[in-house]
């Protein structure tokens, strides 16, 4: 009987883990990170995932001439000082918030339409490697509307 209970518990946890992570990220993006975009209007896209210390993520997006943008990169409480680096397609660094006191937002406009790469790095903490923290990281874009 016991192994059957463990299997049920195991399957139940597998089902629950991704959904709880996603729900956590959805709420974090909507209720915390989106506020950083004001007074810019959020573009409506959802880019968020659970990241673990030491992991990084890249986002590819085309930015259009004449449009002013605000990027907000936020990590949930369990992650500290999430770094974001803006690079051109040749991976030349244009901005890093590490040199800007780990600011959560950056406002910019492009004179010519171009694709940029946003590299997000979750630093390794001082914890024992066996206890890596995970948390939600959201990358959100605001649009200037006037």
């Amino acid at each position, binding site marked *: 009987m*016991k*192994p059957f209970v*463990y299997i049920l518990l*195991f399957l139940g*946890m*597998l089902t629950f*883990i*991704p959904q709880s*992570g*996603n*729900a956590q990220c*959805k709420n974090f*993006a*909507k209720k915390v990170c989106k506020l950083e975009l004001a007074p810019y*209007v*959020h*573009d*409506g*896209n*959802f*880019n*968020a*995932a*659970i*990241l*673990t210390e*030491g*992991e*990084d*993520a*890249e*986002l*590819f*997006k*085309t*930015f*259009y*001439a*004449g*449009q*002013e943008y605000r990027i907000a990169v936020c990590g949930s409480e369990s992650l500290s000082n999430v770094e974001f680096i803006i690079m*051109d397609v040749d991976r*030349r660094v*244009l*901005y890093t918030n590490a040199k800007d006191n780990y600011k959560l937002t950056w*406002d*910019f*406009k*492009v*004179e*010519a*339409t*171009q694709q940029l790469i946003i590299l997000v790095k979750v630093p*390794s903490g001082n914890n024992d490697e*066996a206890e*890596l923290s995970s948390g939600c990281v959201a*990358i959100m*874009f605001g*649009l200037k*509307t006037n």
Partner: protein
Amino acid sequence: MINGPKRYSCKIPILVLLVAMLACKSEKPKDESIKVTEDELMADTAATKSLQSVKQIFYSLPSPLETALILKRSGAVYDEEILNPVENISHYNTSKAMALNLGIYSTDLSYASLFDQTQATVKLMTASKKMAEGLGILNAIDNSVIQRLEENVNNRDVIMETISETLLNTNSILEEDERVALGSIILVGGWVEGLYIATSLVDDLNKVDNELVDRIADQKLSLGTVLNLLNQNIDNKDVKEVYDDMVDLKSIYDQVQISASEVDVIPDKQSKVTTLRSKNVITVNPEVFKKLKTKVRELRNKYTA
């Protein structure tokens, strides 16, 4: 959108941990300690380090709201005739058709709202709501959203904020439900509609200073993102069909030339808005533009039929 196969990379160690826990419980007495050799410890450390370098990839397309803003800034005018009639909603009975047209109506309503076409905005939001309901995204657009639009017909900021909220709801609910393939089709539907509106509004390519033509050519860059985004779920039949359509479109965009100069970063201490200064040289010959316009119309007609 998030790279499917790598999205739950943190699940793997948890899974391994759970399996290990089960194995320990069923096969070993509680007080038995596990002896780890130095070699095993080093191997574990190496495995942890390799997990730490896992990279997740996001491909972000211009949202319907961004597309509408770009259209307006480029000098587009409002033409209700080119929008997908809301009466067409009864034609869309499959997930693929509903997803494409949810994207299409979302772009149409963003476009209408920016030109203060409030009646059209409310009608198109209602059409979007029906498509979302058909896809089982019940909470993305509820009746309070329609009511808020109706109560704020003269307040463009509230209308745009409301549209932004519904787009975020739709995208995040699909992500939460692990229906990212469907989410990618919605985004591509919205992107194609933006391209359709833009190409429909350009009649005279010989007009030299046509910003709208430049923005249409710029979509060559976003098309790369479209293909990468769809490719993440290419094993889904509906996604594969849309992907093949986009490959056809790419064969025309390959004839559009864009050469870009290096980027200079110009910070502005007063406004705190940094300018990324560069210049693109775009070459689109009229024949290629005509082929592009025809192809976009063909795809859009196929999706809205």
